[in-house]
């Protein structure tokens, strides 16, 4: 087993599903459908075209807000890490922003900007940017000046210094920020959709909640979790292996 980490991961999921199915068959609870029922339900939602539609909308929101939050957060964090005065000015603001509940930002955005797409995206970005800024600030502070001195002493062109000397020192921090960012952004996007959108997975979940349709709630969750899982395994982990192979 030790040689097949991927297999172990899959197996743990299978065992979990089997236990779930067995528990439902034995105890017959009212409010917990069996995994097979969820799966059938999921296929129905996919075939009707309604799940792909809402899922695509939600994924689009995640992608846009994640991208903007990463850009803004990295820029802010790097500037704060490199310029002490700016850091002093912004530090308490960032700490404040970190501790404002997501719900408050979301409500305020919808009130100020209206119940529209832009407000929804701004709400997510405002929630996530401070976390990324804090991680990237750590990265900027950890930059090894002695390695930059090598580039300076050898008069290495600025672009090459950036790509080969400066950025590689930040990759672990970018990765950590992206990881944590993705996990947080998709959760916030669902809340935003629940509160102020008329489409997307979050909106659908609120409908199912009103009808007490637990099977559909679980079916949507399953579809969603699969996609996040695939992103992690297909994009983030290979990227991590590539940039950290020298270790």
């Amino acid at each position, binding site marked *: 087993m030790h040689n097949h980490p991927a297999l172990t991961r899959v197996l743990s999921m299978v065992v979990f599903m089997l236990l779930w199915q067995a528990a439902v068959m034995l105890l017959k609870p009212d409010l917990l459908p069996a995994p097979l029922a969820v799966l059938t339900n999921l296929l129905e939602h996919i075939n009707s075209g309604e799940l792909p539609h809402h899922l695509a909308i939600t994924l689009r929101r995640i992608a846009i807000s994640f991208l903007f939050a990463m850009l803004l957060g990295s820029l802010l964090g790097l500037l704060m890490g490199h310029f002490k005065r700016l850091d002093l000015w912004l530090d308490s603001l960032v700490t404040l922003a970190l501790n404002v509940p997501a719900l408050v930002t979301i409500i305020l955005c919808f009130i100020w900007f209206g119940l529209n797409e832009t407000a929804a995206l701004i709400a997510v970005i405002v929630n996530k940017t401070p976390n990324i800024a804090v991680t990237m600030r750590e990265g900027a502070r950890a930059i090894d000046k002695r390695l930059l001195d090598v580039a300076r002493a050898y008069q290495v062109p600025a672009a090459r210094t950036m790509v080969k000397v400066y950025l590689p020192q930040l990759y672990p921090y970018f990765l950590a920020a992206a990881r944590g960012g993705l996990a947080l952004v998709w959760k916030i996007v669902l809340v935003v959709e629940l509160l102020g959108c008329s489409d997307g997975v979050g909106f659908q979940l609120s409908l199912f909640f009103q009808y007490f349709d637990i099977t559909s709630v679980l079916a949507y969750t399953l579809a969603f979790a699969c996609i996040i899982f695939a992103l992690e395994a297909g994009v983030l982990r290979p990227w991590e292996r590539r*940039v950290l192979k020298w270790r």
Partner: protein
Amino acid sequence: MTYTVDIINKAFVNDAGIATAVIRNLGLTLSNGEFVTLLGPSGAGKSTLLNLIAGLDNDFEGEIRLSKPDGKTARVSLMFQEPRLMPWLSICENVMLVCDGSTSQRRSSALHWLSLVGLSGAEYQYPAQLSGGMLKRAALARAFACEPDILLMDEPFSSLDIPAADSLRQLLSELWQKRRTTVVYVTHDITEALTLSDRILLLSSHPMQVLEDVRLTSQRPRNPLENELLALAERFKQSLADPA
């Protein structure tokens, strides 16, 4: 052709605002292709001087003129006390980093210099996979690969054991005889200075000034046990122990 270094005053200011002069009224003239060693006690400010020449520190009074007859500024390379290779770049990429030209030109000159320092076969390994001696060789290849007009070396072999340091010094001599470049070599090791240099500048500390400027004319490879060199070594030892 010569380069001139003229430091009127270089001071460090501590947190309390008190300035300590590290270098004062120090003038150097470097002739092209000359191997000059700065010999002085540890902590005298020799590394500070190299950083000034390398352009890493611009906070000083004085003037450093490194222009060539064609008006261009001399290409400088600096070998640090520790190898300072980028751990995320392979040995070859580390050398390529400092080369000029197209990617293929940079690769071929990196591979050329790596083979000259005896690192053929290790080009695509990462620094973490190599021994201390091999890392120094890679750093030496990097220092030569950018085709410097002036090569600055800051006690480059001081952290190695004696046999490894000896073989690297010999390698440096060979490379330098192949490609004559102006070398400014910093050390506190008298024997090392006597075996490598054309010219030795004996330095004092606090503040750093030139005590003696000695030219060595004997043939290489040199035996540090020759009478003439032994006598010099004895004299240097005296001055370093008792600068006044």
